[in-house]
């Protein structure tokens, strides 16, 4: 018999089991990984969204650390206020302020608030959980929805191939603020996400980590392949894993590129692209985007 490792949950943990996330939720796993690294000397601010809803239906809470939720678009400002309060009380040195927001809360409605927090230099680690659409409310298109994806507000149709714009490149925009640390990560590459979390929490000032978190109901794939989906996104070049320090790219995760079809094929949101020649032309465009990422960041060098 191979030795099996006994696994127990510690109630001291920041993010606890028993929450109401969907089966196969990439975000829940990513938050677990982040919070396990972050420890318990933290204060967490959470934007409205999946994470907030599945972790805190009153009177239940999956949070073993102080946690606050206010609204959809103001998590960066709330975290700024928390940080200012800790600073005033002389407690900032020993406490880390974390903010969690989905891609809609971060790239769209909370973009101004985020930019303000970054520009003012608050000591906050912001984690954007990027599942590429408004999943909590029924898969509506966000600024992070990738080209070609069918959502409930950018549906594929007789005259449409789904989302017609590429993802907003928020990590680069955040990096342009000149903040000390920015990274993209994937829920599926655990050690890398852990390392980036640790790195972010070790730096003072604003930090931004955008974590790609596959979403079974939103993307339309079998929930048991969540980890594979995240890996495929990275390996095809569509989700480059990059680190910036003070506005400069300092490190990328190398890949052996696979065709984008391998990533697109298992997902319902892209299936219309495989049904016609015009759809296939869209896939070719998506391949070009992946190739451009590979070239831009030297992912395959």
């Amino acid at each position, binding site marked *: 018999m191979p030795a099996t490792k006994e696994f127990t949950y510690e109630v001291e943990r920041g993010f606890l089991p028993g929450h109401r996330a969907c089966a196969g939720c990439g975000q829940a796993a990513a938050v677990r990984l982040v919070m396990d690294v972050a420890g318990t000397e933290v204060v967490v601010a959470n934007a409205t969204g999946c994470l907030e809803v599945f972790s805190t239906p009153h009177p239940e809470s999956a949070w073993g650390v102080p946690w606050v939720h*206010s609204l959809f678009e103001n998590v960066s400002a709330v975290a700024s206020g*928390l940080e200012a*309060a800790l600073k005033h009380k002389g407690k900032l040195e020993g406490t880390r302020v974390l903010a969690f927001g989905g891609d809609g809360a971060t790239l769209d409605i909370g973009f101004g608030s985020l930019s*303000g927090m970054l520009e003012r230099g608050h000591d906050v680690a912001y984690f954007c959980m990027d599942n590429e659409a408004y999943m909590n409310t029924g898969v509506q298109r966000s600024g992070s929805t990738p080209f070609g994806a069918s959502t409930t507000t950018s549906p594929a149709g007789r005259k449409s191939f789904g989302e017609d714009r590429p993802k907003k490149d928020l990590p680069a925009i955040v990096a342009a603020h000149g903040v000390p640390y920015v990274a993209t990560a994937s829920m599926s590459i655990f050690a890398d996400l852990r390392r980036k979390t640790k790195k972010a929490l070790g730096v003072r000032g604003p930090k931004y980590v955008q974590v790609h978190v596959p979403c079974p109901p939103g993307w339309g794939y079998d929930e048991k392949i969540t980890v594979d989906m995240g890996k495929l996104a990275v390996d095809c070049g569509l989700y480059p894993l990059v680190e910036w320090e003070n506005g400069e790219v300092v490190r990328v995760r190398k890949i052996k590129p696979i065709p984008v079809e391998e990533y697109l094929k298992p997902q319902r949101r892209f299936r219309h692209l495989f049904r016609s020649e015009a759809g296939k032309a869209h896939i070719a465009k998506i391949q070009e985007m992946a190739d451009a990422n590979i070239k831009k960041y030297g992912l395959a060098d």
Partner: protein
Amino acid sequence: MRRMIEGSRAVAEVVGLCRPGVISAYPITPQTHIVEELSQLVADGDIEAEYVRVESEHSAASVCLGAVAGGVRAYSATTSQGLMLMAEVLYNIAGMRLPLVITGVNRALSAPLSIWNDQQDTLALRDSGWLQLYAEDNQEALDMHVQAYKITEDDRVLLPVLVCMDGFILTHTYETVDMPTQEEVDAFLPLYEPLYELDPKDPYTLGAFAGPEMYEEMRYEIQRDALASKAVVKEVAKDFQAAFGRWMGDVIETYRCEEAETIYVAMGSVIGTLKDWADLRREQGEKIGVLKVRCYRPFPQEELREALGGAKRVVVLEKAVSVGGYGILPAEIRAALYGQPKTPPVHAAVTGLGGRDITFETFDEMQERAQAGEMDFFAGLRTELLEAS
């Protein structure tokens, strides 16, 4: 110490004396000198506060929310469009039962764009869960801020307070005010000790969502406590009088209302002009009284019934228009008096919008039209400018 200073300066100084740990404000849309004066006080080290210079009023309110959740006293000021932009966060702060004081400087709402005074902005937030106090002059505005912190942090209340003061008429006017000392304010308003704060040593979840099985009870509680907070507003006004020797009413103030035939009701700085006009009319033998609504939320229903029930007629002056309706304060006063043993007619006069001066002539017109039986009208309207409907 009695000093001749600008209203905004007076508010900034007294806010400093209340020792906020975090101040956050956006400078425009429009703003007043309050936040500039506070910036200077922080820059000079006179106030030990974190001053967070945000990119919008929405964020100003959100920073305050985070700061109070983090266990410190916080402050912001805004006005007009800025208050509208804050609105979403203001409802949220009240629902989360976070004690906070914001100065709501009263200015008109766009369109058309106007930077001048009226009270449409704060009145639009009447249902938000914020208590609303309206100041008659700069001394009262100053005193109200100290009282407001005492009220909001009372564990029977835990609802935020909007201190409303008329833009320009108060904020930009120099008046002699009696500024309390730090020791006096400290004695009245001790250092902030939060009932709840986000602390890793005692973690709790703040801002969870509530399903249909729970939401209504939470809204019931906020309504129950807001109505009950009237007792605290009164208590704090009495305590303040004992400590500082000043009294400008608690939830209402009546002026020459004894045996008054006509009582004028209003909020804010126009009360001073109304009192002068009432004096003049009294000299001419007309029995006119003035009632100041100092605390609009919670609504002083019983006090208004008692004070107005004996009058022959009530005229409510409102620097706001409830478009498509029949007044905001007037409608509430009508509702308060309805079915009472004595129910005087309540006339509603809209006036002073967008900085239009309110003069004795305006009151004369109101008196004439009310006596003629007009119930809802605009006073001081320049009818020659109106386009044909």
